[in-house]
């Protein structure tokens, strides 16, 4: 990009947003920041689609009878809720939006290592999304997002198309991971050693490892399901000589590590927010950094804990139970270190920090109920019930989404150059926290009472708890719609943020907001540790507000 001389008093500095206004300049961009925004729009669209399905589920479950929709429709609705949220929202949300935007800035690079592959990965995401929308409009799919065979072999819904959509989305994910790994290895600014890297980079790196090692397995598994359906090869269906449990092994070999693809980047976000708003170095940097790698490695060794009642042997169940306890430790280490970081800090309660508090609380509950599920004697009773639903929503929504919203508010001034309205943001964070707990806490009780998941109708004694859950979901929906509105508002009316409104450490705050297309006017040279908050003056008590 050629830099154009612009009179200082006439127009704002050329940045990545105003450097080209044509549609082509967006759709053919190789700028990681613009691609991050492309992801922001498309992933947000899928989030609201998945949220719409969630509302349909909660409305149906207001009453014990199956009355709002047909059983088949309900089955398709929860299937598409799962597929959209897992493959088109949770997996890309933090890496592809926030990661894409801040990883090159954080390491002091001009862009990712392979800018064109980065654009390709967005196009693959969009292609997969369109294919899935087509699948949906063509009757949808009713197998559950888990595609268990032989039901998925026999189902007369649109399994092949959904499988191919996931196959393609997988490549988007692989390319993103590849790009991050190479960028983090090869493009760090001079002086930015591994031990000086922001923890978001460490967790993105660990995530990327899981992406490139795990995703091919789900891709192959989907191809095998498609092959079995179309060519009648006996792979999973016992009627054709296959083994249905083999599918579950293959599926969870990816899909359990995929949980860490979702949660690790959000953990990275929390590791950025907590030091900034406590004005402290993160407590135990090495342990937080290496715990991300430990999660990525051990995360590959626990998949069969989804199969305790599926028909695996007694002793393999015990081995996988044990390993599942092992993987809990590095997550706990993070929680303890964030908490310890608060000690003797100078803590302010801006919106990103509120989300970080929310994350710590909800992820603690999500993690501890995960430990209960790893306890086999308990798992036999509560697996495939609402207890599991509650557990993974505490991790996925309470964890991943809290981290994402925290990160989005934290970097919003960098991304747009404008502040979001703080009071509205705090209010909606409150809605999210209250609504979330009201939605999902009753589901723990429902699960222990024995209400199975994926039920269109249920015994009447479960109704009160289901009504509470639906009520909570409405509050939660407000909490998600509000940021959508006020963030759009802030694009035009938000206060000018300045380069570093939080007085945060990290290279991304050393360039202008919004950053120029090539990120830095001159390549930064790093001579300090990460989170050197002792060397950065605190910001004034009031953040800039709209005029």
């Amino acid at each position, binding site marked *: 990009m050629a830099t154009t001389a612009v009179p200082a008093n006439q127009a704002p500095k050329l940045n990545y947003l105003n450097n080209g206004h044509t549609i082509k300049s967006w759709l053919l961009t190789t700028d990681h920041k613009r691609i991050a925004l492309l992801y922001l729009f498309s992933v947000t669209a899928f989030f609201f689609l998945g949220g719409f399905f969630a509302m349909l589920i909660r409305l149906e479950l207001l009453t014990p009878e199956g009355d709002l929709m047909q059983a088949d429709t309900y089955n398709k609705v929860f299937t598409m809720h799962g597929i959209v949220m897992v493959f088109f929202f949770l997996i890309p949300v933090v890496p592809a939006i926030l990661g894409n935007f801040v990883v090159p800035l954080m390491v002091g690079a001009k862009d990712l290592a392979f800018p064109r592959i980065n654009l390709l990965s967005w196009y693959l995401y969009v292609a997969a999304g369109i294919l899935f929308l087509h699948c949906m409009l063509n009757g949808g799919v009713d197998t559950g997002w888990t595609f268990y065979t032989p039901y998925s072999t026999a189902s007369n819904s649109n399994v092949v198309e959904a499988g191919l959509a996931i196959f393609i989305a997988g490549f988007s994910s692989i390319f993103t991971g590849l790009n991050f790994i190479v960028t983090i290895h090869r493009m760090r600014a001079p002086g930015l050693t591994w031990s000086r890297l922001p923890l978001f980079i460490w967790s993105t790196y660990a995530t990327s490892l899981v992406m490139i090692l795990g995703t091919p397995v789900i891709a192959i598994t989907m191809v095998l399901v498609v092959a079995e359906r179309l060519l009648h090869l006996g792979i999973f269906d016992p009627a054709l000589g296959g083994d249905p449990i083999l599918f579950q092994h293959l599926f969870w070999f990816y899909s359990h590590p995929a949980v860490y693809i979702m949660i690790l980047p959000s953990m990275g976000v929390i590791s950025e927010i907590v030091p900034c708003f406590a004005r402290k170095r993160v407590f135990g940097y090495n342990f937080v950094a290496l715990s991300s790698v430990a999660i990525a490695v051990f995360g590959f060794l626990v998949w069969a804990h989804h199969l305790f009642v599926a*028909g695996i042997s007694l002793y393999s169940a015990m081995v996988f*139970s044990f390993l599942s306890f092992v993987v809990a*430790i590095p997550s706990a280490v993070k929680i303890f270190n964030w908490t310890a970081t*608060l000690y003797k800090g*100078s803590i302010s309660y801006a919106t990103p920090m509120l989300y970080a508090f929310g994350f710590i609380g909800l992820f*603690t509950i999500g993690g501890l109920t995960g430990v209960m599920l790893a306890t086999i004697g308990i798992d*036999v009773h509560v697996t495939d019930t609402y207890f599991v639903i509650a557990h993974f929503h505490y991790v996925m929504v309470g964890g991943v989404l809290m981290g994402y919203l925290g990160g989005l508010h934290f970097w919003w001034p960098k991304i747009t150059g404008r502040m979001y309205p703080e009071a509205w943001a705090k209010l909606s964070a409150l809605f999210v926290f209250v609504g979330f707990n009201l939605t999902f806490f009753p589901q723990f009780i429902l699960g222990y009472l024995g209400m199975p998941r994926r039920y269109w109708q249920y015994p009447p004694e479960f109704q009160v708890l289901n009504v509470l859950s639906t009520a909570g979901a409405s509050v939660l929906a407000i909490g998600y719609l509000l940021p959508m509105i006020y963030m759009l508002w802030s694009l035009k009316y938000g206060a000018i943020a300045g380069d570093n409104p939080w007085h945060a450490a990290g290279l991304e705050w050393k360039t202008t907001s919004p950053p120029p297309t090539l990120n830095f006017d001159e390549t930064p040279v790093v001579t300090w540790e990460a989170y050197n908050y002792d060397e950065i003056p*605190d910001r004034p008590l009031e953040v800039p507000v709209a005029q």
Partner: protein
Amino acid sequence: MSNYLPLWPDQASTMAGQVDALYIYLLLVSGIMTAIIFLAVAVLAIKYRRVPGRDAHQIEGSTILEVSWSVIPFFIMLTFFIWGAVIFFEERTPPADATEVYVVAKQWMWKIEHIEGQHEINELHVPTGQNIKLIMTSQDVIHSFYIPAFRLKQDVLPGRYTTLWFKATKPGRYHLFCAEYCGTMHSGMGGDIIVMEPQDYALWMAGGALNPLPETGKALFASLGCSTCHRSDVQGESRGPDLAGLYNKPVKLEDGRTVIADENYVRESILDPTAKIVSGFKPVMPTFQGIVNDDQLNALVAYIKSLAQPSSGQPSQGTAGLENQPTPAGQPQNVQVQ
């Protein structure tokens, strides 16, 4: 059962109390850990809130703390693991004296076959105080047999048997759910477990005397022609292995392996006879895939199992005696040919 707002499920099996005790322990420990973290975050966030003139005090970290908050929770969790594994071990080890009940799942119903010949749909009557072992298979997709009041669940797979055992303790009517998503009416694939006092159960059982399952199997065994090759009277010369006393015994295979002749082995040997050839025999048996349905298969398995218990009836006594007696009609040619 239709409480307004139940918060705890019924306890109706010997397992239920054990699982609940572990669950309460987990709730307590997790509750304490959650409280510690919540309180720590709240107290620290308030105590060290930003005040003009007071700066943060930088701390690098502490290896001692890191090690202790890794190791202590790990040892606490080891108690979860061990207790959970002990319960699971018990859940997965059926007592030898268990009464067997066959379960066939299909979209979207449960078919129950008692060994005495009683058939039920979406209902299972069991007496209190007796060990019951369910031998389950599915005719189509994966289902899961789930009784919340017993705290027990087991997936039911097509093409093989899985088992589940329990001892009911409290008379009553309890939910039976399908817990593995199986298509349109998954949520309708439920039923009732009716736990009765033993005397009531005996009355119920007497209500519809039918052929015991092994008897049905014995008749099938003859009508399908199995008995022409699987004979006891011509040891070492018949075309098929002798099945008397076979069940639950090790079998030496042609390829050198030794397997235990459990329910799944018997089932596979009927449906896919060449999968595991017994040492010394030729793969001459035709498959019965598509010829026998799951109900008939269960009857055959029950019959072959009954042959393993010499005291339990005619079949094995009969075969034991055959060696010295005139062969039954319809079989003499084989004896002479071999």
